């Protein structure tokens, strides 16, 4: 099995960004922002620049990148799965509601 790389941009993030094309079953090494390394198995293809889930993310759970909410899961996302428009949607309206609280 080949070892691939993805980058973790902020300690709060539950996704990492592939910096090379990752194939299903590839072992992905992610250097976390605290310096430790997490190795996960890719469940599917993660093209260069796309996101991989670092934890199981339940449906309606937030996707965090750059330390901020970038959207919420539209279905359960498994650790190692690709995170993109097929399972994420923007949550802008909810962020506004939170601001109003």
């Amino acid at each position, binding site marked *: 099995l080949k070892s691939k790389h993805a*980058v973790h*941009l902020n300690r709060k993030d539950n996704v990492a*960004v*592939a*910096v090379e094309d990752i194939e299903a079953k590839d072992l992905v090494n992610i250097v976390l922002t605290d310096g430790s390394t997490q190795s996960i198995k890719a469940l599917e293809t993660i*093209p*260069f*620049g*796309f*996101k991989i889930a670092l934890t199981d993310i339940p449906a309606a759970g937030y*996707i965090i*990148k*750059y330390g*901020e*909410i*970038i*959207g919420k899961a539209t279905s359960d996302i498994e650790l190692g799965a690709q*995170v*993109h*428009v097929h399972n*994420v*949607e*923007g*949550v*802008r309206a909810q*962020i*506004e509601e939170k*601001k109003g609280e």
Partner: protein
Amino acid sequence: MIISFLGYPRPDGSVGIRNHVLVLPGGLISTKICEFVNGSHTIISADTGLLRTKRDREIVARTLVGIGKNPNVAGLILHDISAASGYPELKPETLAHRIAETGKSVEVITSNQYPNACKVIERGIRVARQMVCDASSMRRQLVDDSHLAIGVKCGRSDATSGIAGNPVMGYLVDNVVDAGGIALFGETTEIIGAEHLLAKRAISEQVGQEIIKAALETEEKAKSCGEDIRTINPMPANISGGISTLEEKSLGAIAKAGTSPIQGVLKYAQPPAGKGLYFVDSWPGSLSILLGFEAAGATLTLYQLGGGGFLGDTILFPSPSGVAPLFWTTANRNTFQLAGESIDFFSGTVIEGKETIEQCGEKLCRLVREVASGSMCKAETIKYQDPVEIYRLDHPF
């Protein structure tokens, strides 16, 4: 103050990095004058202010005045052919008067003093030739970095933009601001989801509220069209590059604005009142925002290119440079390999682990001084210019 680039000092104390003779407004007359006279230049826009609200006509006027005042312009000819609509704010004399405040050479050619358009062109050629000669006798001088004035934009963004391209651009922005210069960024749609982070960087609570307001108004305006903005932006090109939501795009995009305090929110084509970093409430379209930066006084514009849905060479990308050179950067290795002939700077070394953002950013800062001193951007080597779109706020009637 670090004295580090060679620029053209202007009578109003500003410093240009290019030395254009400009003929405005763009159209047949201007085009023919510029075809005949080396070193003269025009900008074509379909937006003449015709049948537009007063607010929009003022934007058109402000843009024309701003482009004329831009320190990269040594001298300017204004003709009145397209002012035949008669709106007072677009009268060439009015525009010329505002531009002449800079002390630069401005000449108005009034068409009714000539029997026909050919004679207007003939007069324009004579004036332009003399202006080009006069401009050529101006010499670059060593000036300090507080005279740098840049406008930054990102486009076709993908994950490489957020990880490296925009942070490296942000390093340059902080560098220019620290040196006492001016940096402008905008693209209001693409701060939605990240506006709270920008607001925290505002110099006052009021400026912070203006940033939030700009984002919310853009969102409301989109909704009033009956279309959720999220179906428009991120564009399919961004999605094919790995960006999933507008919030994700925005969070990557604001990295190009560095970390400096935000001094204020400007309207499109509005010059800043002072030095530092400003947010321009504007539309992200390439043909629009760069012109707005130039009209606000930016003498260099920079475009950070991603690569999602990439078409090929940037030579195919809009080339809307008006009076400021357009400098291309990318952090996408594939984009750089495809389009390297047209890209001025590659920051993908950060992703590849070969350089830090600081190391790569320092290289960009040095190169920007070279370009400010006269080294050509790749885009400047091409004899083509797209028409521009002046950003308007209202419906036409």
